[in-house]
């Protein structure tokens, strides 16, 4: 099967909107979707909720979600809310 990977840049100011775009792209992705978090300094509760929903959808579709450039503060938040194990992290 041909792998169709996709790269979505996440903007801290419009994180929810960016996640929505990512959700829309899920349909056309096979294999892997990369979310670029390198410009996200902080994350809030609504964003975490959106990410949890998103990773659930991705799992249903068999898509691996890779978070790129997550800073250690955000990474710690994902660990604390037990979401970290559901993503793949690359620097």
């Amino acid at each position: 099967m041909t792998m169709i990977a996709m790269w979505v840049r996440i903007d801290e100011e419009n994180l929810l909107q960016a996640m929505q775009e990512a959700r829309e792209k899920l349909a056309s992705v096979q294999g892997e979707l990369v979310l670029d978090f390198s410009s996200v300094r902080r994350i809030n509760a609504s964003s975490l909720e959106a990410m949890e929903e998103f990773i659930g959808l991705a799992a249903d579709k068999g898509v691996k979600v890779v978070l790129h450039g997550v800073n250690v503060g955000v990474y710690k938040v994902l660990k604390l809310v037990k979401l970290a194990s559901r993503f793949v992290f690359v620097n």
Partner: protein
Amino acid sequence: MGAGAKVITTNATHEPAPAPPAGEGLGEERIAYLERLVSQARTAAAVFTQYTQEDVDRIVKAMVLTGLEQAQHLARLAVEETRIGVMEDKVLKNMVATEFVYNYMKDKRTVGVIRELPERNLVEIADPIGVIFSLTPITNPTSTVLFKCIMAIKTRNSVIFSPHPKAWRCCTEAVRLMYETALKQGAPEGVFSCLELHTLKDNAYLMQHKDVALIDATGGPSAVKAAYSSGKPALGVGPGNTPVYLEKTADVSAAVVDIILSKTFDNGTICASEQTVVIDDEIYDRALNKFAELGGHICNEEETELLTRTVIDPKTGFMNGMAVGQKASDIARFAGIPVKPGTKLLIAPIHGVGREHPLSVEKLFPVLAVYRAKCLDEALKMCVDVNHAGGLGHTAVVFSRNDEVIREFSHVMNAGRILVNSPGSVGAMGGVYNDLVPTFSFGCGTGGGNSTTDNVNIYHYLNIKRLARRTQAHMWFRVPNQIYFNFNAVENVHEFPSRSTMIVTSPALEQIGYVELVRRHLPEETRVHVSVIPDAEPEVKVVLQGVEELKFYKVDQIIALGGGSVIDAAKIMKLKYESPEADLKELAAPFLDLRKRVVQYPSEKLNRTRLIAIPTTSGTGSEVTPFAVLTDKEHGRKVTLADYSLSPDVAIVDPQFVMSMPKGLTADTGIDCLTHALEAAVSSYGSAYTESHAMQAIRMVFKYLPIAFEHPQDQEARSMMHNAACIAAMAFANASVGVNHALAHAFGARFRVAHGRANALMLPHVIAYNAAVPTKFMPSPNQKGYVAHKEYALIADLLGLGGHTIDEKVKNLVAAVEQLLDQLEFPRSIADLGISKEEFERAMPELTKLAFDDPSWRSNPRMPLVSELEELFWKAYEGRSPAKAGRLSQQQSA
């Protein structure tokens, strides 16, 4: 701020115990609701970890301003809902909970680095705790919520509140106001929540929830107990029973005002408020008159009985919940006691503490028990009784001008807060009458079943991490400040004025004229006495006899002329002469680190005596070391003393005293010197100072020992070896020795083999052992990495032994040592000494025990296991050359 114990039993759902197991009796819907609360609090706490100090300080300030603006609104709600207390006082409580708490915390760091201790190389870093489940009381509902919300934000935690059900509406409003303000300032969503009307089952479920990090229970004893029993970290603060001692020297008028204002504050609902005032007989009537004058009603016996029936539950013996926080006049009316209008306080004389004296318990309303004490002793005992009648760990108050009385009172009270000449309730809160930390949660210590006696504050809401940077232990290089060396150095004794000098020496040295050689150089005015002691390891008996001689002649200078044994004996004589109370057995107690050992050597000395050491062998180096060994024949053991106070004041290293040393002694002492230097060079206590001395001594031994051995009259060789022994001793006096000495001490003692010879048998094997990768590393803060093999390689280089790799160099060093031993005609194995394998095997348990007990190895670079000591003994027994074995050092990098 804890509510009174039985008040909550009457009114609350926090109280009945035991709490049901988590989840039991809760429907799915309820569990889902509780899970949502925890999930949102957990998310909020996680998000909060990203906030900076500036973020939280901004939010806190806004919350404090909201609390101040809403203080009256919340106070009214609280009084309307609970029917407890005084609205005006609750406004003050709300303001203290905001303004005073803010004033305390505003400049304190609670995010990231909160304290740096550069002198200790420590940095303290604050981490939030996470989700806090918080129980709040009926007595101080809104003020406690405000206080906890502000603390939580300052420390970046989220809180799920479980208010007392009878204060639920006012608490929910307080949480709402705090939450909305916090959100506006950017706090994480879900940072505060408040349980909807709830039951004990909800509390039990949340207390045991895996995502709740801390329980902060302010309430009665059952709430506190449930919190501590949950298996979670908990802050539980509970009820009190504050005794007050009004002592005869007190300012009675001022004290009475303080007591009235405190006991009537919010109608006595603060658990730190005064419960029983113990008054000295001399001022009792004056004090009661003052109470009456300022609005107190003094109950007679009949009224006291009526009051007791009204405010104390006869079944439980605790206060009646209906009375909590009610006005004095209302309570009097209920009791049928006629009082003047404006009566503030009902005062009931009691005659003891306990069930027979019902009013001696905690009373969270304006009823005060008073007791007339005939004397200080009776007063203090009465206060202790009150303290133990439900008030352990909480608060106690004393009014007195007598510091001794205040101190004695503070010693006998079991209370986290002991307040002096100030009101109990407002005083305990902190920040108003004293410098205690402002709080609405009083830790009562173990007496109250709590984990702390503190006024609970922001630091109880933080995990404080300590970043501990590696420190270098203080090191030293201590040797006698005067060392004279080379031929005729003994002439220098004339430089030391003395009225009475004792020369301590051995019979042989006296016979060959060495004593005379010294005596002739002493100043003419010096009276000289000679103490001849056996030339063997000194015995306690011999030393004590010597001390008697020193006393008899009022000696001010001791000259130790001899080998290590004589010099050691003189060191101990001096110690006992200067400090007769010194207990040699105690001073010989084992220690791990000289700087931290339990036993301290005497510093105050009776007679200051100069000790001049003149060695007559070239090996022990006792003339510059802080060690002395003596034999305690009575108890069948050796006593090793180690302290720099034992070091001689002057060393005279004059080779003319060693020119006549026999070959065997030259070899034995020479190898002892080499072992000192080799062990000091790789010691874990080593430093650049000791290493330089050790290296020089090693170089001198390899060059001059064979010459001194073969040509005993070679003055240069003798001189150099004499200096080498002293220089090596300066190294090991400060870096100590190692496992070679531990093995040699054990073997030498068990088989009566000379120390130098015993050292020689072990030396090649110990070098090989230390050069290999250790099974266990020795803790050594001053060294980076394992370096013993590199040190040996360095020595090989210094000696010009060749080799390309570390392993080759270590092997060459071992071979050079073996060659030296051969030149000195040493036996190369223990078997060569005629000791049978069976005998050696039988001795092995004792040998390994002695060696492992020996303090010498504590500075060895490699920590020896007992099995390794045994292995080393066997290698020495067999005597196979380690230089001819395979690879020694496992580490190749130079």
